[in-house]
């Protein structure tokens, strides 16, 4: 666990150091709806099904809380 956190810290610090700042007017491509760093609303059912059928879900969903998921 400590090694993983250390690795993450190194990656984050390395990333910060290597980046140039992108100005707002340069973010046309970054602001494309498909570049969002997350799921689209319609993906919620897919995520929900996976939470029910797989053991590696988080705190909310499936058999692990925030709903039954017992089927």
């Amino acid at each position, binding site marked *: *666990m400590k090694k*993983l*956190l250390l690795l*993450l810290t190194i*990656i*984050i610090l390395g*990333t*910060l150091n290597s*980046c*140039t*700042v*992108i*100005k*707002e007017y*340069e*973010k046309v*491509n*970054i602001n*494309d*709806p*498909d*570049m*969002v*760093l*997350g799921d*689209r*609303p*319609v*993906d*919620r*059912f*897919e995520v929900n*099904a*996976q939470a*029910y*059928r*797989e*053991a*590696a879900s*988080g*705190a*909310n969903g499936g*058999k*692990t*809380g*925030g*709903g*039954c998921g*017992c*089927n």
Partner: protein
Amino acid sequence: MYFMKSILGLFIFLFSVTVFAQDSTSTYKKRVLETTEIDFLVSYYSQDGDNAAVSGGIGTEKLTDFTPTFVVAIPLNADDVLTIDAGVSAYTSASSSNVDPFDSNEPADPYVASSGASASDLWAGGNFNYSHSSDDRNEIVSAKISVSSEYDYFSLGFGGSYTKLFNEKNTEVSVHANVYLDTWKLLYPIEVRDTTSFIGLDKKNRNSYSVGFGFSQILSKNLQGALSVDLVQQQGLLSTPFQRIYFSDLPDRFHENFQLADDIERLPETRFKTAIGGRLNYYLNEVFVLRTYYRYYFDDWGINSHTASIEIPIKITDKFTLYPSYRFYNQTAADYFYPYNIALSTAEFYTSDYDLSEFSANQYGFGINYTDIFAKLQLAKFGLKSIDLKYDYYKRDSGLNYSLISAGFKFIGK
């Protein structure tokens, strides 16, 4: 205990920040959300397999589920947004029907779903989320309350998050915390309910405490990525009361074609989970975007898992985008998992729930999106901004498979 106290402390902090982070400035600023938005989302899920946990690792896993949901985002002022998310899930399930396999006119059989009263159920849930953005839009705090209920389960949840953007909005860090307080109605397999040798469960509550940290960074004009760490502590009833177990060291007993339970699944009352994930999205050109995701998970029940997925949105016109996707998942088995009729009655913990077994799964998806940025098509006082349709097919190497059809319609206030 220390972990739970830390989460509660963080939760109280986030909630306090949300309540007190009100700005008094009256200078002009762009609204966080210009107008009310309504998402109507609906899905149809169909599953099949031959390893039902309700019948100790054998038997049909047939399940269908229809889930209509509304998500309404309301701008309260320039800075604050209230989001209400409410939905129901109407399902028919061989699993729940075989809690009592003897309540229909047909001979009971684990490979046939009983058509009795327990064959279907309704889940209903909703959550309220309130978010506040600072004047410079570099800080966002939110708080939420969630509730869900079905016949044998009730869940109440609280959560909060804090997000900070800096480096000219190139970098974002966030922290979120959630608490779920769940209560079971203990529903045992029908044949053990009046058995004197059966020892019932002494807990019916399940509490989940989670905290998560996020970090995202714009790496170039076309590339951005995110990292996340989630920690979850659970305690209470973590098993499902009506899932049967058949012991190898006890004689098998049948009624009709159905094997009677030797016991129910029994699992530890605590579980600690850790998940570390990352996303990397690359804007290839005006037609293609590359979306990738990876997650590593481990817990103290002995489960390790890897998830990797890729999606390549293809803009075929200015209004239509295609979404082919592939996802790979694998997990090791929980320490307490035993296939059908393998567990020993002398063990402390055991389950034959194949969702806790070792398996790999592949998922193939294909979606299509239609977007009209002018939302010309009117419905009452709302314009239709986008339509999403998606099909997913999921298959485990242990046999279970499902198909999922999802649709989403986004309306914006005019």
